[in-house]
């Protein structure tokens, strides 16, 4: 196990050593369920798929993931442990990736625990499980995107509240840029490629493609490169603000 693995293990165990794990998972599952059944009309639709379940994931993540991500670096900096971490023989990049992977994996655990939803829909009907699998993949990748943004915002400040608020705002930007309402603002005057560019940055555009069951390499590349970009930014910000 390399140093990334050691950090990953410590972080992941850390979630379960504090009430964070329980609170996050319970709230996530409750909200996911409530949205699906009440807002999404899961039963009344009479269709055996999980579209009403996955449709709300961007909004759930928008609020819940920044709450998880805000402590990633802000807490290290406030507690002074950042000094400890970076005087161990570890590179900046290994630490950033290790911590991110643990947080991402934790959301993956929460997401996996929604399996009763999948069981339910399989009992009630005969859904296309390929589509559901692709949707889970898309949801997980999107969670990674939100988490990487949150990681960078957390590196910016000691203050977790500020990290949370900025993460939500940036995340909202990444959701809304796929909305017709926002795109209309541009389509009147901006060239078509600009509108497409803005729309192509949206989590929704790529997540919707995956949740329709189309696993396109471009969508995977989008999410992975987005994660890579924000983690790179995290490392830059950490290096820049270390002294504070």
């Amino acid at each position, binding site marked *: 196990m390399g140093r990334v693995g050691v950090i990953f293990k410590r972080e992941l165990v850390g979630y379960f050593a504090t009430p964070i794990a329980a609170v996050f998972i319970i709230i996530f599952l409750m909200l996911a369920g409530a949205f699906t059944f009440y807002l999404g009309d899961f039963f009344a639709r009479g269709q055996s798929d999980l579209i009403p379940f996955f449709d709300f994931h961007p909004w759930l993540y928008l609020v819940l993931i920044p709450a998880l991500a805000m402590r990633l670096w802000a807490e290290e900096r406030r507690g002074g442990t950042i000094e400890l971490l970076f005087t161990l023989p*570890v590179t900046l990049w290994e630490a950033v990736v290790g911590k991110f992977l643990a947080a991402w994996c934790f959301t993956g655990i929460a997401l996996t625990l929604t399996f009763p939803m999948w069981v339910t829909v399989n009992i009630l009907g005969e859904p296309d499980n390929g589509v559901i699998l692709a949707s889970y993949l898309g949801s997980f990748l999107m969670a990674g995107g939100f988490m990487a943004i949150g990681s960078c915002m957390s590196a910016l400040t000691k203050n977790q509240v500020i990290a949370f608020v900025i993460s939500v705002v940036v995340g909202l930007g990444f959701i809304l840029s796929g909305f017709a309402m926002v795109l209309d603002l541009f389509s009147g005057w901006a060239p078509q490629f600009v509108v497409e560019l803005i729309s192509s940055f949206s989590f929704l555009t790529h997540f919707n493609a995956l949740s329709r069951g189309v696993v396109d390499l471009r969508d995977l590349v989008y999410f992975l490169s987005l994660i890579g970009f924000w983690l790179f930014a995290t490392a830059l910000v950490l290096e820049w603000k270390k002294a504070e």
Partner: protein
Amino acid sequence: MVELRQLRKTFGPIVAVDEVSFTVGRGEVLGFLGPNGAGKSTTMKMITGFLTPTQGTVTVNGFDVWKQPLEAKESLGYLPEGAPAYGEMTPLSFLMFVGEMRGFRGAELSRRVSEVMEKVNLEGVAHQPIDTLSKGFKRRVGLAQAIIHDPSVLILDEPTDGLDPNQKHEVRGLIKTMAREKAIILSTHVLEEVHAVCTRAMIIARSKVITDGTPADLEARSRYHNAVILRLRGPCADGVQAMLQGLPGVESAEALDGDAMEYRILPKDGQPIIGAVSQCVHRHNWDVVELSVEHGHLDEVFRSLTMPAQALT
């Protein structure tokens, strides 16, 4: 083992560390003294590779801290100010984590963790979350993580700050036992600590190194160096003070407490005067309660060196 060359760090317009150069070898315990904000911690953070200097280089065991950071960090142990640790972890799991980060696995890892826990007396609290531990235990956890890999260079930022006298004594004892085969740099506000553990003392003020020498050198700069304290049982002949003042080599004699007949006799240029004083005592057959030589007051030296000239008057 540690070499700093013209190290400089600026934060915007503020110069935190200005052209600091020195080397520390095996067996040396260098005490960093200086007022708050003088640049002690910043210098230490640059030695450990946490901060990047604006100019200059640091080498640890021959490795440049910025060109070969991993190699340099491997031979370095660091206790940051306030001994930060992950509060939700227990000392045991925390030390296991640090040990694993240092590349130890399996039996070697467990051996090192239990060894180091024994060394700093942590066994009793091995399974309690660090957040719930007292300051003294937290400091020991910090020390333990700094020495788990038996580094040849140890950087300790205020290792005894906030500890009670017994804990201070323990930590100092620990530092002393490690001193022989390591190069140790520690910062402190407690001047008595310099005596207790350091082989070398360095005063840093206004971002610069002001003095660098043995603790005895530093004391010799005090105007109380080699001063004699004399207390007599009264009532005694008048003019004792005048007689003392007239002795060869004596600069002045000040009465510390008139009724108790206690005097501090200051020498000229720090020369020993105890001989002259004791001869004088014998000659007059004074009834002596106390006769002692002062080595010098470090706090006075510290103040006179670190305060701006106008503030002294």
